[in-house]
């Protein structure tokens, strides 16, 4: 039974990550390879704050979000000046830089060993120790983030993002502030990713740089593309399918490394197959079950 809660929690955390990337990449056209970096910043901020200073969950969450917002804002200021090709490279560079800092800044992040000893979440005096409790919390957070994203995407702001993605120059000619809109979309998506980071730190009671590498960014991008660039529900379904696939592959009895390789091959195939079949579709329905 605990196994089910574990899979569920990973599904919810990955859904938050993928849906926040959907806002930037699907709606805003900002294909960012640095999503795992913001995820990592959220995780590490929470870990450092709760281990060194002992802050509780409801203080850690806003502080992580603010810190990631500030970092994402400065990155966005630089990155939005470039066009599509080079934007991907700048975000790739940002991902590698932040990953490298998390891995190498031994004094603060303890390098490859990571930070251990993040305490459990305490809500109203009760310590959430069981998997089921955390399952409920992550489910609530996922619903919250999904709801926020749904409202953002259906609002005039979301329509403006779609307009900017489809024709930037025309939007500018209509008098819309394209630069500010893109920066704000990037920052919002980073902040939502940091929420997933906070949950991750509390679930594993630790922070490690191995989960926040370029591979994770590529995985998130694959999920967004496979699920449909603007399809929040499709992205949730894609995450469910991919996580279940991971567990099913475990039952085949393959060694861990081989399973990981085969999984990545399947991601790549799915990506290319979808691109060959439909191109980068922007419609609502992209996942065929």
């Amino acid at each position, binding site marked *: 039974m605990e196994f089910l809660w574990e899979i569920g929690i990973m599904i919810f955390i990955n859904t938050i990550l993928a849906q926040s990337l959907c806002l930037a990449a699907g709606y805003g056209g900002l294909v960012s390879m640095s999503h795992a970096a913001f995820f990592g910043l959220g995780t590490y901020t929470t870990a450092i704050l709760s281990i060194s200073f002992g802050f509780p969950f409801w203080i850690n969450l806003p502080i992580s979000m603010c810190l990631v917002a500030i970092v994402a804002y400065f990155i966005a200021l630089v990155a939005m000046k470039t066009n599509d090709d080079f934007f991907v490279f*700048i975000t790739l560079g940002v991902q590698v830089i932040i990953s490298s*800092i998390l891995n190498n800044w031994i004094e603060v992040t303890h390098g490859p060993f990571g930070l251990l000893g993040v305490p459990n979440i305490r809500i109203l005096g009760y310590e959430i120790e069981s998997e089921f409790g955390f399952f409920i919390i992550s489910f609530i957070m996922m619903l919250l983030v999904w709801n926020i994203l749904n409202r953002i995407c259906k609002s005039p702001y979301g329509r403006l993002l779609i307009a900017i993605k489809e024709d930037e120059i025309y939007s500018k000619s209509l008098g819309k502030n394209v630069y500010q809109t893109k920066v704000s979309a990037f920052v919002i998506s980073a902040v939502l990713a940091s929420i997933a980071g906070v949950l991750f730190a509390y679930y594993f009671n630790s922070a490690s740089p191995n989960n926040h590498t370029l591979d994770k960014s590529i995985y998130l991008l694959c999920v967004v593309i496979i699920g449909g660039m603007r399809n929040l529900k499709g992205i949730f379904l894609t995450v469910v399918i991919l996580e279940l696939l991971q567990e099913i592959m475990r039952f085949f009895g393959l060694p861990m490394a081989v399973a990981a390789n085969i999984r990545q091959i399947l991601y790549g195939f799915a990506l290319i197959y979808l691109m060959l079949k439909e191109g980068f579709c922007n419609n609502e329905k992209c996942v065929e079950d």
Partner: protein
Amino acid sequence: MQQLTINILVNTTIYLLVSCSIGLIYSVAKFFNLTHAAILTLGAYLSYSICYDLSYPKWVALVLAVCGVLVLSLMLLYIVIVPLQKKQVKGWQMMIASLGLYTILQNIISLIWGDDTNLYPLIEIGKVYSLGSAYVTTIQIITFVTCLLLFCCLCVFIYYTSWGRAIRAMSSNRELSTIFGISEIKVEILSFLIGSLLVSVAGILIAMDEGLSPTMGFNKLLFAIMAMIIGGQGHLIYYGLGAFVLAFIQEMAAYLIAPMWAETISYIILIAFLYFQPYGISRKQNPKTEV
């Protein structure tokens, strides 16, 4: 200081070779082909396998590996890249697709040859020459000479032959070139083949120096693209300048600060370049698409 110079020179030539190969493909196909990294890795692994597992002599292994890689890149071109281009997919979307292709190939390499780093002693490493206070290995000399030789051959090909002229024409204006009778698909195939040839040789050289690992291609390719961006488009020599700047920064950062921060600092410099000088040292701007 002399050791630094030698390291910088050798790294410059390797980055130059890889960036020329990816630059050739970028100038014709107009997207960064990240699958190139897998071709690099595959060239190295194939030559290792043919040499050690099948016990062919070293030079035969090299030639066979390069041929195998060329065949594979032709297959990839026809199965994936041409159909995607027919769909009018944009540059960065092709890059994401090529990233997917890279993931597939890299994991196939991992499945066949294992995830570990292997050593690849093709030539005896025992011979170390000393120039003053610095040490040069045989492999470094071979790398330096081979890369420069291939670069000179490439320059001669691009600037003094009619096929090279066709490639230059296609890279500057694709539509107009087809009107003048240059065959689009032939030029694309040619640029892919030459690019794959160069990068598989570079892969073998890198493997001789550093050993084989399934992910070695991606890192080197990113550095090569950095060298390309820093140098800018235009004459091939700008790739050399970009490669030199990159190698210089990396070795200086490793020497003055710490080796683990060398990569981070290279990426910071890349971002600075993309922000202040997006067209590189040559400052040549490609004509933007029409409104």
